[in-house]
């Protein structure tokens, strides 16, 4: 294997880690309070949400990559694999947010309202008057939904990029898939430690911590990239 054919996957996997980490910061994670509708976001932890969306993206990318006639080194096919990963993730997270929203609105009976902004930056609706006293918002308001979709798209692209890099190194789809899963979890959890529990989306003040998470994931992915490229010699 020549130098260039190892360098490109190495760069891809390093970027993939940083993208996965950034993606998690966009997803509106509410944690346990959101499960009781006393906090804005989806009612589960960062890791679970990122993993759910990321794996769907990974599977969508792997399905496209396995089609006959798809050449992983062709830039156009490469872009299609990445996009299919993004779309897979967006469908998964979009449905999760929609179903959660239906339960919040028609089951629990709360109004979707964001706590971290006076007016919704996208629709311009007032948020504060609709928040129940003693809670920090509830449901998935428009800004959180859009933010979640952006996060899911980035997560799908990141997962697909890691998978594509491993396939380009010559790993079989099974090995590439299992390493990509481990890689995805590592970066998603690093991001969730950076967030520290709950986040509403890109309008949340905690979102400003994103550079720390990206740097951490970048370094961790650099190390993983070195290990993975050396591993590729042993196929």
């Amino acid at each position: 294997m020549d130098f260039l054919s190892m360098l490109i996957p190495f760069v891809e996997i390093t970027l993939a880690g940083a993208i996965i980490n950034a993606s998690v910061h966009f997803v509106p994670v509410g944690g346990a309070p959101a499960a009781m509708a006393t906090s804005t976001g989806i009612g589960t932890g960062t890791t679970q949400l990122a993993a759910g969306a990321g794996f769907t993206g990974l599977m969508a990318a792997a399905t496209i990559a396995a089609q006959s006639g798809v050449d992983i080194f062709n830039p156009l096919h490469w872009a299609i694999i990445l996009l299919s990963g993004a779309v897979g993730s967006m469908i998964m997270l979009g449905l999760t947010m929609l179903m959660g929203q239906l339960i919040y609105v028609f089951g629990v009976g709360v109004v979707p309202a964001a706590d971290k902004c006076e007016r919704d930056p996208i629709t311009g609706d007032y948020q504060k008057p609709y928040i129940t006293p003693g809670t920090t918002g509830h449901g998935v308001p428009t800004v959180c939904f859009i933010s979640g979709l952006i996060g899911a798209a980035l997560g799908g692209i990141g997962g697909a990029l890691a998978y594509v890099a491993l396939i380009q190194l010559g790993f079989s789809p099974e090995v590439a898939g299992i390493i990509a899963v481990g890689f995805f979890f590592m970066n998603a959890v690093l991001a969730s430690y950076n967030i520290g529990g709950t986040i509403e989306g890109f309008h949340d003040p905690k979102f400003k911590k994103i550079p720390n998470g990206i740097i951490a994931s970048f370094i961790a992915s650099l190390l993983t990239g070195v290990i993975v490229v050396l591993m590729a010699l042993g196929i």
Partner: protein
Amino acid sequence: MSHGGGGHAAELYPENQIIALGTLLAILGMYISQFFPQVSMLLGGLLASAATVAGANTTRKVAAYGLGTGVPSIGMLSLGMGIIAAVAGIFLVNALVKHFHVDPIVLYFIPIVGTIIAVILGYVVGRLTVNPIGMKIPIMVESMTKLSLMGALSILGFCSAYAGGFLPEIIIPGAIKNGVMALAFIAAGMAILHPFNACLGPDESHKRTLLLAVACGFLTWFIFAVARLEVISTVVSLVLWALAYREFIKQSLKDACAVYYTPELPKRET
């Protein structure tokens, strides 16, 4: 949201002792799987569950500080690093033999190489969680190192027990290409993260958490024994699990407040 509750309960055994024992037993189990494939699931699986018990013990120690993201996150992180280290151990040693033409005897050092990579990866990720990310847990770096190690050892242990050895030509078709490694990822992950996640709280006791960890380890072994359709291991693991779980229930009842009678709910509100 802190998960620590009442902080640290008294330790029954020192953590390092459990880690050392878990590492030794898991590596021993891999060599037994390699050299005696007839008993790979019976002994290899049993010894691999030692690694999950040690991992659960470290999870207990670090998660008691309150991670802010729930106990499962650290278990998944440990398995994420562990799976990279485990696969890297197999492929890196294979690279030495295939690409650099080293004597094939080095293939027998796969568990050791996997251990070393897991320690390096865990240490680096641990440092990253402290420095740019800013986790304020004093034992974060050493705990991440230990968790990564235990994740890698439990995955390699269960995979080599399933495939009947850790040499690349045995484990790659026997446990990676057929997807058993994904089972090892999630089953071992559950065994590492579940015990403390279930037992945490102000009255958490080390004995109870450890008993549940042992029960979870046996349950993981049972899942692999069923997946491999091996009757003896299935029966033995199920019996051991039942014994461990019975002890756990007994201990839970002992630690709980006495409930003498449960009043019936009123038929209708008055």
